[in-house]
């Protein structure tokens, strides 16, 4: 009986109960039990539609368990546990409660069997997660949070519009694969696309995630975008346009990540790039590809959380994550360094780490279906991933130029959370069978074939080379420009020019577009404040005379209207 209660209720009840417990280590520890209960429930519940309730004229399915929702539900619970453990030392009740509710809403959305309940949880993730951004408490975080909230709620609104349209057309609210066929499904597609950070719809991600607290970003990175991946995999598998959208997503963040100095922002770009792989998998839509998407989401949540955790620990101890202000931290934060390297190796898909066993599925699926260009793009993107996430992050933080900072090692709970996450990353990389067993489709697959491993090592070596070149040639914003190298001068300059001008070009174009848009938005806001503010025409008290003039004018219009009706 207990196991058929939808997990969202566990989380809500859990949030209320933990609030009753006095603030302190007991409450923080008690919160850890909530996701554990969620995992226990998932392992015990049979597949099927469990809780159905009537709402208006429709039947809502709150708890649909099948293979796809099982994988995402499981990893969301695990991620919730790890983030809560990582944030164990936080004593702010708003952050605690909102973390629990946010995770609960995301899990609720995964198990929603119809579009109305999906919409409910979809909006709930937006309304709860924004508090994790605001928790930073700065003026900038407030504005960022507001922007984030508007975009997220806007996504929900589109989802609602699409749902309503679908209801009027088909009368059904089931959350199933309908394909991208008409306006209704297009609206829903865009709603998912916003949360999934499709190109041009992605800015909220890089805007919001680095703005959150050290612990908040870890929580944020796990749920919202992967929920969108789940929703796309559920409703739009095999929609070909997703392949091309995914390709753009894989490539364009690489340039931004390469020139970005704030390392948490680098991770946010790299998150976008990783989503690209999953989106491609959904677009291909074969069982192998969908398995790849699910597996990659599973692995990705873990290693991305691990990377954000290590950067969070650095932020916690030093107060910055700017590459130019860090360096040489391995001396005093050796454990954090090791965990960060594990995360970096996983995201770069080193064999024996989790990224390898999941990304391979998608790459093989692309090759099997004859998407050769896509396959090549994936290789290039993989180089980019290794370059910015695999090397840049650990190198500039823990090695590189010594910043002179000698912070303490991260707190024990952070270390424990990172240790558990690292173990999962390595464990899945060495022994992927348990993960493969719970994927949506039955597929025999062995990632450790000779060709595969060799190809991957070639890619990795090339990326390593690229990093060295960039680093030595001074493209990276570090001070060691005086060091000379033995490369051919023209080749060096050429490469450097191409890469810098490409990056700079994209950067300039991008900032001009944003500046232009900002200008337009800014002037709209200024003029609306002028007219609607407390001293404006619409926001202030008008005199009685002018009000009566309005009324007379309106009466005239009403008279004319009703006379012309006969």
């Amino acid at each position, binding site marked *: 009986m207990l196991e058929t209660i939808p997990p969202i209720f566990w989380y809500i009840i859990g949030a209320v109960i933990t609030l009753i417990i006095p603030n302190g280590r007991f409450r923080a520890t008690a919160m850890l039990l909530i996701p554990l209960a969620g995992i226990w429930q998932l392992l015990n519940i049979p597949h099927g539609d469990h809780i159905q309730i009537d709402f208006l004229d429709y039947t809502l399915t709150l708890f649909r368990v099948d293979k796809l929702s099982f994988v995402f539900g499981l990893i969301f619970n695990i991620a919730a546990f790890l983030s809560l453990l990582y944030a164990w030392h936080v004593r702010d009740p708003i952050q605690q409660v909102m973390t629990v509710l946010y995770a609960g809403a995301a899990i609720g959305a995964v198990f929603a069997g119809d579009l109305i309940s999906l919409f409910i949880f979809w909006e709930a993730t937006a309304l709860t997660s924004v508090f994790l951004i605001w928790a930073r408490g700065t003026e900038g975080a407030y504005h960022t949070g507001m922007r984030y909230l508007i975009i997220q709620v806007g996504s929900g609104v589109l989802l*609602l519009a699409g749902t309503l349209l679908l209801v009027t057309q088909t009368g059904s609210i089931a959350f199933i694969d309908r394909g991208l066929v008409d306006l209704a499904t297009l609206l829903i597609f865009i709603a998912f696309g916003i949360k999934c950070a499709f190109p041009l719809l992605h800015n909220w991600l890089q805007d919001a995630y680095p703005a959150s607290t050290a612990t908040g970003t870890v929580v944020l990175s796990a749920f919202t975008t992967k929920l969108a991946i789940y929703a796309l995999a559920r409703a739009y598998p095999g929609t070909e346009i997703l392949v091309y959208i995914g390709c753009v997503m894989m490539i364009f963040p690489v340039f931004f990540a390469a020139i970005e100095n704030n390392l948490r922002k680098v991770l946010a770009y790299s998150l976008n790039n990783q989503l690209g792989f999953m989106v491609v998998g959904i677009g291909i839509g074969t069982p192998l590809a969908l398995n790849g998407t699910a597996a990659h989401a599973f692995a990705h949540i873990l290693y991305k959380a691990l990377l954000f955790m290590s950067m969070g620990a650095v932020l916690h101890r030093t107060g910055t994550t700017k590459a130019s202000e860090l360096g040489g931290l391995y001396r005093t934060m050796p454990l954090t360094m090791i965990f960060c390297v594990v995360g970096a190796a996983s995201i770069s898909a080193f064999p024996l780490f989790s990224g390898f066993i999941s990304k391979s599925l998608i790459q093989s699926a692309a090759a099997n279906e004859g998407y050769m260009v896509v396959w090549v793009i994936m290789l290039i993107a993989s180089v980019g991933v290794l370059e910015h996430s695999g090397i840049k992050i650990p190198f500039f933080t823990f090695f590189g130029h010594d910043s002179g900072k000698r912070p303490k090692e991260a707190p024990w709970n952070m270390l424990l959370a990172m240790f558990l996450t690292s173990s999962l990353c390595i464990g899945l990389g060495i022994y992927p069978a348990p993960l493969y067993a719970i994927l949506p489709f039955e597929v025999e697959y062995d990632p450790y074939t000779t060709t595969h491993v060799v190809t991957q090592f070639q890619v990795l070596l090339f990326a390593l080379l690229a990093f060295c070149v960039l680093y030595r040639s001074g493209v990276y914003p570090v001070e060691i420009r005086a060091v000379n190298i033995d490369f051919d001068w023209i080749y060096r300059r050429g490469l450097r020019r191409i890469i810098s001008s490409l990056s700079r070009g994209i950067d300039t174009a991008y900032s001009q577009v944003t500046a232009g848009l900002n200008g337009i938005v800014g002037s709209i806001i200024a003029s609306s404040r002028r007219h609607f503010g*407390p001293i404006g025409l619409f926001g202030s008290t008008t005199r009685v005379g002018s*009000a009566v003039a309005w009324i007379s004018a309106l009466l005239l219009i*009403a008279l004319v*209207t009703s006379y012309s*009706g006969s």
Partner: protein
Amino acid sequence: MSLLSEHIPVLQVAVPLLSAPLCSLLRGVRLPWLLALAVSWFAFAISILLLIQVMDSGDISYHMGNWAPPFGIEYRVDVINAFVLLIISGISAVALPYARLSVAHEVDPRRHGQFYTAYLLCLTGLLGVTITGDAFNIFVFLEISSLSAYVLIAAGARQDRRALTAAYNYLVLGTVGATFFVIGVGLLYMVTGTLNIADLAERIRPLADNRAVQAGFAFIIIGMGLKLAMFPMHTWLPNAYTYAPSTVTVFLASTATKVSVYVVLRFLFTVFGPAYGFVGLTFEYIFLPLAILAMFIGSTAAIYQTNLKRLFAYSSVAQLGYIVLGIALGNIAGLTATVLHLFNHALMKGALFMALGCVALRIGAVSINGVRGLGREMPWTFAAIAGAGLSLIGVPSTVGFISKWYLILGALENSWWPVALLIVASSLLAVIYVWKIIEAAYFGVAPEGRGPVAEAPLEMLAPLWLMVVANFYFGIDADLTTSVAGKVAATFLGSGS
């Protein structure tokens, strides 16, 4: 007993009316309040009985003094006005337990007798407008409720002298509206010779091309449009709500405009009907554009307000836009949304203004800067604002969502895509002005010089939370409200010719 149950309709109005003069004789602060409380609860019980009776056995017609209509005054109760009666008396029944401390804090203690007298008269007027089946009687009760409402608003003068000008402005504009209404009724009377609403509907049918009927219609719609604060005739509303005592704002914001909407519905659908050419044109050329303007201009103005009562007053203008929009859609789903939103909006705004009253009790003025950091000191009050705010935005599992759902369905039924999009887009504006308060309360830093603030007393929190819980309860189990509203819409559109 059977005699009593036969006279239930008249008791609904007569009891508050007769208690009002009694109340003015009572001294002190506790007795007038107790009387008003007892009367409100009694009226609430009566309205429940009426609704049950109407739902079970159809319309009730009560002949005042046994004079048969159309010569005598008839009280006529059907599902729609039984529902509105329930809203008015229900809000009053919840607002009065809350009122004692709030009124004691905000209103001159020597004037409590008069204050509650005016309150009871206002209640009488609103109930009377709703229950009567006579057009001129509507005007009389409308004036009773309006005149007492001006007094109630002016009672805020002890807190802020601007209440006097707000009341005065409302008086001038309200009188203009009432005059328009009575001119319209007069024109109809001129050509039909009757004031009874059912009779009026019969006799107007052959006179659809009569200029006097059309002019009468225009006067009535504009007159009542002013009373219901239809944009751009809303200018009296923000100040009136801002400077009135908190309890008065709670009561008026939840009931007064709703009653005006009811009168508009009654004339649009019972007396006239969508089949009349000029009614359809009014929907399309007056209601539709004004409703959409109200949604956006009201919400945008709300975003920039610094006084929170004023902020929610502008939000009311926007919400009334939704109500009018539902009428303009002219189909069952749209009309269902309108009727639903009468109830749902009363719940939201009742809760929000009650919460602001709690804040006012503790810190005086309710400005956005004043409430910074208050979320931690008054957790229950601000949790209530967050809950009711979610409902205002239209988040699922709240009543706001149910209203918007039907409204959008109505727009889609007409294939008015842009309108459906505008409805959802305007919800985003509500997110901004509600979450702006939440952010200030929970993350803002307390202004200098504000000492520790205590949570509001339980006596005020309990009614407040009753309203908040109702926002969620009727958002999840919407069977009762949607069945009533659906029935009303079907009756109006079915018998609308």
